[in-house]
């Protein structure tokens, strides 16, 4: 391993750790712009995290250690997934054949413990949120894997670092329609998995309608900070996946590619903010339909590759 490779790995790690809260800041600023408000400063999420980390913890007597393990596992698994995704066309620090399975299943482990922590409180509202989270994730999973099939088939590789890294440029010239279908489908998955409008409103005030936020109602202080940081990192990871497919980084200057990646991440945050500002929330029963549709769009992509 050369010095350069180590440097790229360090940059990868730094971006994964430092950039996510900024994405949330950009989304909020965009929404404020559309609402005609000044909005919180771009760096407000970092201040929020610092504030929460300084606070104490309040626990219900119903809860067990699972209540605290939930946020920890959620963050750790998202971080694990972030190490598998190639950023800016650079191969990921951890890569092997079949790493896409670990990517999906690590996030699954995070979901398992996040929902378990919600159920640990014994609150009906949190059970409701947990049920919705688990249900919608089931419908998003085939969409993710049909997309992976498209990438694997058109790249001939089974590692994320190739199938959404070096190989993507060539894939756009041979199978652009399939890739476009995957992009559409995965953008829907990004919005749903990250509890964004039109699937879920991160700012809603009615527990009955929430999905993700209601699961963490009883967390406060450092556990809440870990949850918020993990949620931001999850948005970053899904964003990185989309960017890797949409903007193949190969062939450019490797250092410039990092700058392009950061710019694309922020641009994606703006897009998410715009979607949140111009769309209304879906009724809950419709969420399932949209996710199934997203899965089918990915499946169309897979079919397009057959010849």
């Amino acid at each position, binding site marked *: 391993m050369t010095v350069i490779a180590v440097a790229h790995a360090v940059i990868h790690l730094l971006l994964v750790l430092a950039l996510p809260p900024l994405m949330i800041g950009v989304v909020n600023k965009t929404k404020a712009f559309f609402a005609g408000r000044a909005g919180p400063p771009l760096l407000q999420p970092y201040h929020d995290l610092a504030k929460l980390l300084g606070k104490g913890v309040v626990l219900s007597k119903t809860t067990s250690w699972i209540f605290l393990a939930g946020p920890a596992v959620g963050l750790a698994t998202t971080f694990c997934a972030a190490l598998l995704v190639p950023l800016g066309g650079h191969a990921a620090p951890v890569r092997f054949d079949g790493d896409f399975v670990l990517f999906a299943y690590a996030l699954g482990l995070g979901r398992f413990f996040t929902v378990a922590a919600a159920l640990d409180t014994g609150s009906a509202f949190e059970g409701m949120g947990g049920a919705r989270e688990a249900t919608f994730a089931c419908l998003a999973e085939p969409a993710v894997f049909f997309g992976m099939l498209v990438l694997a088939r058109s790249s001939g590789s089974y590692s994320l670092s190739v199938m959404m890294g070096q190989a993507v440029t060539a894939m756009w010239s041979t199978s652009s329609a399939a890739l476009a279908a995957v992009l559409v489908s995965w953008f829907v998955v990004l919005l749903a998995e990250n509890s964004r409008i039109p699937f879920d409103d991160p700012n809603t005030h009615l527990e009955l309608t929430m999905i993700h936020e209601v699961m963490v109602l009883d967390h406060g202080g*450092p556990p809440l900070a870990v949850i918020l940081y993990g949620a931001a990192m999850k948005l970053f990871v899904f964003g990185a996946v989309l960017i890797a497919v949409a903007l193949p980084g190969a062939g450019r200057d490797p250092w410039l590619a990092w700058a392009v990646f950061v710019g694309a991440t922020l641009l994606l945050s703006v897009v998410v903010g715009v979607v949140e500002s111009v769309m209304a929330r879906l009724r809950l029963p419709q969420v399932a339909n949209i996710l199934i549709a997203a899965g089918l769009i990915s499946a169309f992509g897979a079919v397009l590759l057959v010849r």
Partner: protein
Amino acid sequence: MVSEWLVVTAVVISALSGVPGLLSPRQGPARERLFTGAMTVAAVCAAVAALVALFGGTSQELSAPWPVPGGQLAIRVDAISAMFVLQIALLAGLGAWYGLAYWPQRDHPRDGRKLRVFYGAVTAGMLLLVVARNGILFLAGWEVMAASAFVLVSTEDHLPAVRDTGYLYILSTRAGTLCLFAMFALLGAAGSSAGAGADLHMDRWPAALSSPLGDAIFVLGLCGFGLKAGAMPLHVWLPSAHANAPSHVSAVMSGVLIKTGIYGLVRLTSLAPSPPAWWGYALVAVGILSGVLGVWFAIGQHDLKRLLAYHSVENIGIIFLGLGVAVLGRSLGRSDLVVLGLAGSLLHVWNHGLFKGLLFLAAGAVVHATGTRQIDRLGGLSRRMPRTSLLFLVGAVAICGLPPLNGLVSELFVYLGLFRAATSHDGMWLAGALGAPALALVGALAVACFVKVFGAVFLGEPRSADGANAHDPERPMLVPMAILAAGCAFVGLGAPVVSMALDVVVAAWIGPGARSAPALSSMAPVVWISATSAGLLVVIVLLTWWLVRRARSTAAEPAVGTWDCGYAAPSARMQYTSSSFAERLIALLAFVLRPSVHPPKLEGLFPESGSFHSHVPDTVLDRVLVPSFRLAARLLGRLRPIQHGKLHLYLLYIFGTLIVLLLWR
């Protein structure tokens, strides 16, 4: 040779292990310890035999003449057999220890001795059938196993529900055996017409399987073995049998007994020199159906053990998927698919034994402590049964295929096989392109289902008084669970070691004639997956430890319950139940699951209290089989006079048939 003798010893000891108990009185310990000791000795013998066969190299056939037509007392422990022997030894041995505290003679004077006699017999039958080299000997082991399992399932035969279950089980297993009789008859017929003789020795099966009758043999095997394995739609006996048997019997049945069906299919396909591709497609199709519907039915269940039983159907589906990929690889000449599919399939057989055994034993501990299997009557057990809850959590994470445990490793192999199939440019792309997303769906549904169970049973507040005095079980019950949990962790974190054993088994499946297959570790990232899992585990432990420490240092001792949005008098029954958790998922597939829902009638402005209940019955049983059996009963009613219960006339029928057959010859 040493492995074969050790297995024979294990078969004899386990078959006799419960017999001394019959000679002692019902009241009193009835030689429980002797039984457990004998089972332990048998298990150790079998395990050593398997390890010697897997890592020691050559095995040699042990044979003796047997006057039964077509039969021969021939056994051999090759790598495929060894894999199954090891698993049988592990679960049967641990189950015997568990039974010491779970089903002690002093609490069960009526059926304790019966249970132990047939527990030993079922173990002996399973061990015999997986090492038999002759079709008749295989069937003998198979029938000992199937009949003993019937007695075990109906251990508590004073309960009507258990009797119904036993009836359903014996019907299904007879139907399965019927298919196997036909299969072996065809094997013999095809073998003799191919010039290999009517002897049912396995060395002669390849000739029969590549004859024109091969397809018929495969279909009969798929039905007969599929019935035992519980593949959808042949699973109808399985949910109630697993639910009503004592928990350590459920663990053995789900962990290893249904796997004998898989063994049969693995053996059959290993002996087919060039199976047609449609065998592989059929296996993949059954795998997808079993996997998706198995887990979806599981989500709708209210009975903890019934739910676990449906997950067996799901996992059998995953095993079929892997086996299907391997058969496709064999028929289309792709050795990479053979290695990945078969390794995934067989490792999943193993993994399922570990985590499903663990889950059934943990469920048994819950039933033992609370006296109920109804998930919606439980809750909050993690504070009363902390050890059981941790062990159940390990099993739940493992069965969902999540890192860092064992389910991930075998599912990864199957995924890689499916993806390789999907990226190929011949007909099999469809198998991969449907199989992989289906497996992903199964994985996500399993997470939903197990987080529901774990949350409803172990987290929150108790929903009824049943679990109020619950506590962790005694050591004989806890230690077997801990051993199985350690096994889950070992396979997850030690995948490179496991892959070496799998290479040996894959080589045995391919057979000595073919060119050697690539090593599993050259295609699957066994080192990386274990290393990443270990890293993830370390980060999780550190982060959780930090949060717990922060919480301890800053938080006062919790004094109040959950905030619950300010509601002043929350009750435990207001918690989200497992049924409400599952409601939306069930509704999505209601056209298949056909849930029956009985909502209360609410009238007026201030309706009186009502009750709501719902359940998901087995569609195949209730909507297909029972109606068609009713129809058959009506149509065949005219034949009833010949069915009168007079033994001498039945013997006359058999005699007459025999004469007719002899004349026809």
